[in-house]
């Protein structure tokens, strides 16, 4: 493992490498989302290994939260299952450590700021760094409130991935893009997470515009549920994030092995659809 020989790479560097590999291979990035601890830690580890093998560029690990206002029914239920099964921050960070040992795939924690704040921002980021996280996506932290977390992430070399949405005015989108590290998360729709049958109108143009304004890769997420949609987005974006569709595909599987395999095949399909040349 590269982090064992010589200089330790920062989270941001690991993400940069992962995107560079994609680019060299003529692919767009694929970042699945799964919930930590649904149904348990052991299964989560198995799923992560499987999607890493399937070619995922990086992965968002959803940290279960009791009041996720940005999430639709699929991810809410998944969070509830995980919490009911006893998932907590300590177990979540153990999952991260275990994956850091086993795979190159960078992991980002998708965590509510409520959780980060409660632990203490510095403490939470340090814990993230020492367990081997590459960065954070904090869906309920707007630009104005983010200075402290930003500062801690910079010190630790972890990415703080920011989100732009269809309701973000252009000036603000520029500022958000400028301050995003790792990549920029382009939210495809105004709304909560969840699968949608069609890509929203104007998305492709928005991505093209953002592409010009941003120095970091642009990954598009919220509502992308099929390989076809991923392929369409991949024509203009640097990658796709697929959440609810992955979680739902896991819901349908029954045991650890079938869950890991199901996630693996779905991610493989997405990776294939994001092969651009």
């Amino acid at each position, binding site marked *: 493992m590269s982090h064992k020989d010589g200089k330790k790479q920062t989270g941001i560097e690991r993400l940069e490498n992962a995107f560079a590999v994609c680019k060299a291979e003529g692919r767009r990035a694929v970042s699945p989302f799964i919930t930590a601890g649904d149904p348990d830690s052991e299964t989560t580890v198995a799923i992560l290994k499987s999607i890493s093998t399937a070619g995922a560029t990086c992965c968002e690990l959803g940290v279960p*939260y*009791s*009041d*996720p*206002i*940005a*999430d*639709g029914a699929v991810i*809410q239920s998944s969070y*509830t299952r995980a*919490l009911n099964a006893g998932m*907590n*921050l300590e177990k979540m960070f153990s999952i991260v450590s275990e994956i850091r040992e086993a795979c190159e795939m960078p992991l980002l924690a998708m965590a*509510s*700021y*409520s*959780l*980060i*704040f*409660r*632990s203490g921002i510095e403490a939470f980021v340090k814990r993230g760094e020492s367990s081997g996280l590459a960065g954070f996506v904090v*869906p*309920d*932290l*707007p*630009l*104005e*409130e983010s200075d402290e977390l930003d500062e801690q992430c910079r010190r630790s070399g972890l990415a703080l991935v*920011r*989100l*732009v*949405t*269809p*309701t*973000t*005015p252009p000036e*603000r989108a520029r500022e*958000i893009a400028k301050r995003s590290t790792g990549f920029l998360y382009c*939210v495809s*729709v*105004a*709304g*909560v997470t969840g699968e949608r049958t069609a890509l929203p109108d104007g998305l492709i143009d928005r991505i093209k515009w953002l592409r010009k304004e941003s120095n970091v890769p642009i990954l598009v997420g919220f509502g992308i549920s099929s390989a076809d949609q991923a392929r369409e987005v991949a024509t203009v974006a640097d990658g796709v994030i697929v959440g609810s569709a992955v979680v739902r595909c896991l819901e349908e599987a029954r045991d650890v092995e079938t869950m890991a395999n199901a996630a693996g095949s779905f991610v493989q399909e997405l990776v294939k659809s994001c092969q651009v040349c």
Partner: protein
Amino acid sequence: MSRVQAESVDQKLSAVPDNFGRFGRFGGRYVPETLSAALNQLEKAYDDAIIDPEFVSELEGLFGAFVGRPTPLLFAERLTEKAGGAQIYFKREDLSHTGAHKINNTLGQALLAMRMGKKRIIAETGAGQHGVATATACARFGLECIVYMGAEDVRRQSPNVRTMKLMGAEVRPVESGSRTLRDAINEAMRDWMATVETTHYIIGSVVGPHPFPRIVRDFQSVIGRETIECCNKLFGRLPDTVVACVGGGSNAAGMFYPFVDFPDVRLVGIEAGGRSSNEGEHAAPLTYGTPGILHGSLSYVLQDLDGQTADVHSVSAGLDYPGVGPEHSYWRDSGRVDYTSVTDSAALDAFDMVAQQEGVLPALETSHALAWAVEAASEMSPEEILVVCMSGRGDKDAAEIARLRGQE
């Protein structure tokens, strides 16, 4: 000289929030980016509205002819006698149209929604009073109205569900989580995420992201202003003690805010003490909680060490909430307002006492403040004046109280 004055003005407790929605360290705006633009739009619309004489006079007109303001201050003669101490007065928000203070806020916000060109309104409700007040304002102005309400609250506050429907609102029961107020707010926020360009969210208390805590406080402050005016007229002075129940904290904030710069007036907020002080058995974040983030702002909250919101309990649906408005946290930490809690059973006893001694049926929420008031009055002198914010009437609770007693 002028410099000293400027500083003392700045240091006034009432000079909050700042431009970031901070009340001291509390408040702020912790929301998904999707909502940022709408909150900025709301902030601007509000700033414009309050200096627009037309807006101000329209709202005043509604407060008079539609709500029935000013609400009276009633001397609770027999209760005073029974307590045997301070003179107890009720600020009669229960006499407002729709039976609680909530209407002050919903009329103001409905007018704001129309200024922003938004014709669809969503709201959450716990006790159903805010839902009724929102449905009422929407009916008055011809706005579409959808109210999210925890399924448990739909059951225990069913008279209000009927009223909302009669006013033309759609009530959506929320089955997730604890099926109470907190879950109703989650669902309303999720709706708003997808509809934010055409919909205004009329939040029901001084909670949520900036600028809601400020806007709701300002619309509710008519309660405290009228109380001050009335006390000056009746007694030639301010009251000694003012008490209000605290759920999200809107009736209390509306009552307290005009008083905070008068340090001689003691202000007391009463939270829901539930069954006990054990986690999960009460809903008293200012009494037992820690600073944390819930529903878009930093305030005292009941959560576990990881930051997961704790389960709460109160016999009263309107107080059954793990968070509280950020300005209350500011007042708590600055020492300006004292907060304590009253149990379910003490509130139920006060409900009976006030019904039978005064011929006023208080809401179960209000009964928490009343229980404290009777106790406190007994330790005060007869020259002292104690005002209770009678935030709402108790018709909605009659059936649930009968059911609880039937089981006892």
